[in-house]
């Protein structure tokens, strides 16, 4: 479904992606791990077209991601941003129904609101939240609204950028469960970036670790603990000593 071949991206002299190769099958939940500044977010942004790669190939459903109709391409995706990225000037339901109120598949206001409330309910929020504004919500609620927005148009591919950052452990657990349930229920292909190992274990079918701009290790979640890869071992066991320098 998503096939990344020899992807390179630099910002000035700083090489961020240095030949990333990665394959994600349809309906699979891939979690990308790696230290801060190793290019995980850049990788996702390259796939979705927010950042232009220097070279390499990104194929989504057999089509080159950099060519063809952009709107049609983006319709396949939903994305939960790290900070929620909710639009301050719009109410919660308008945020969730943003895509449904515009574009070629535009619905009536009433229908869009109904779908938004249903999606809010799906992520555990009551209908009375619909008319609040993002600034009136807690961090956990904002994440849920962001999740509801990501799934509002039933996308085939969902990206989660650090879905549990800034949340307490209980709320992190709730979001992890929601992400997993929704991915399974929708049959969507998911790609999640996280540092949170409890998220990795809750969400992943497969794991890929990025280090020094390349995929250092990739494999099923069941093999992660016994991979024998010293980089992955150091990272998942949160050890200061090992091949990854603690100070970058």
């Amino acid at each position, binding site marked *: 479904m998503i096939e990344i071949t020899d992807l390179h991206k630099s910002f000035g002299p700083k090489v961020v992606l240095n030949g990333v190769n990665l394959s994600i099958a349809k309906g699979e939940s891939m979690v990308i791990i790696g230290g801060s500044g190793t290019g995980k977010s850049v990788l996702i*942004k390259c796939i*979705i*077209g*927010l950042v232009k790669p220097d070279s390499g190939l990104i194929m989504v459903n057999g089509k080159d991601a950099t060519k063809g109709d952009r*709107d049609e391409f*983006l*319709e396949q*995706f*939903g*994305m939960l*941003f*790290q*900070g929620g*990225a*909710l*639009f*301050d000037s719009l109410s919660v339901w308008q945020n969730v129904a*943003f*895509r449904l109120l*515009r*574009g070629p598949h535009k619905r009536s206001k009433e229908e869009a609101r109904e779908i938004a409330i249903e999606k809010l309910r799906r992520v555990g929020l009551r209908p009375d939240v619909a008319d609040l504004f993002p600034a009136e919500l807690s961090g956990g609620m904002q994440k849920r609204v962001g999740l509801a*927005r990501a799934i509002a148009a039933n996308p085939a591919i969902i990206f989660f950028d650090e879905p549990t950052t800034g949340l307490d452990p209980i709320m992190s657990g709730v979001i992890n469960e929601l992400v997993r349930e929704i991915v399974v229920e929708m049959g969507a292909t998911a790609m999640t970036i996280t540092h949170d190992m409890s998220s990795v274990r809750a969400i992943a079918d497969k794991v890929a670790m990025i280090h020094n701009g390349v995929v250092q290790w990739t494999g099923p979640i069941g093999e992660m603990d016994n991979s024998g890869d010293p980089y992955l071992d150091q990272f998942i066991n949160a050890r200061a000593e090992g091949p990854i320098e603690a100070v970058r």
Partner: protein
Amino acid sequence: MFILSWFFGFLAAVGRSFTALLAAIGRISFFMATAVSHVFRPPLYPRELGQQLLQIGYFSLPVVGLTAIFTGGALALQIYSGGSRFNAESVVPSIVAIGMVRELGPVLGGLMVAGRVSSSIAAEMGTMRVTEQIDALTTLSTNPIKYLVVPRLLAATLAMPVLVFIGDTLGILGGYLVGTQRLGFNAAAYLKNTWDFLEAEDIVSSLTKAAVFGFIVALMGCYHGYNSGRGAQGVGRATINAVVSASVLILAANYMLTEVFFSS
């Protein structure tokens, strides 16, 4: 030897600044061309345009109106005091009218709106950039230039002439009030003098300047906000750059438009 190396260092610094200036002009021109091209391509967002007309036009009215009325009053006092040195007090109504409509109305209105609107657009869009809201728009199949920039550019370009027209009128009213209440002018004669001296070209130039200034205000706010750096500092810098560049460009554009309209 030291002087020579200092001289080459100085030349290099000047060259770097000049290259940076050209690069900035290129980036702004490209941004402007992209935004303007989207004005003529659907979809347009009428709801966002309406909101921006309200924000930029209606809510700027008190600032522009108060600025104009006090400027008109002060202008009347200054012209009266200056004119009395060579017995030309009677020119107060005509100079107030021409001064307000040709120059002070559009320029001061433009500068006030630059302070209020450019900063607000830059801060809002800068925050949207920093909090990934602009990226989120893209992932939701919405072009951020079309959704955020075009309505602001259109609203400012359309609202400024209306604002300046009201400002011009209030400025003349300020002069009229000071002239009749403080300086002892006859009300009917004051109005007649004002009306007789104003020409259609004055009003056309005023409204044209206003539309151009509105475009500049929104363009600078959008450009700096859209390309804001990271964090609170980045947004703060974007806001300052937006106001300063909009103000300088308004004054430069004012000179050029005055040349175009009145050089003959």
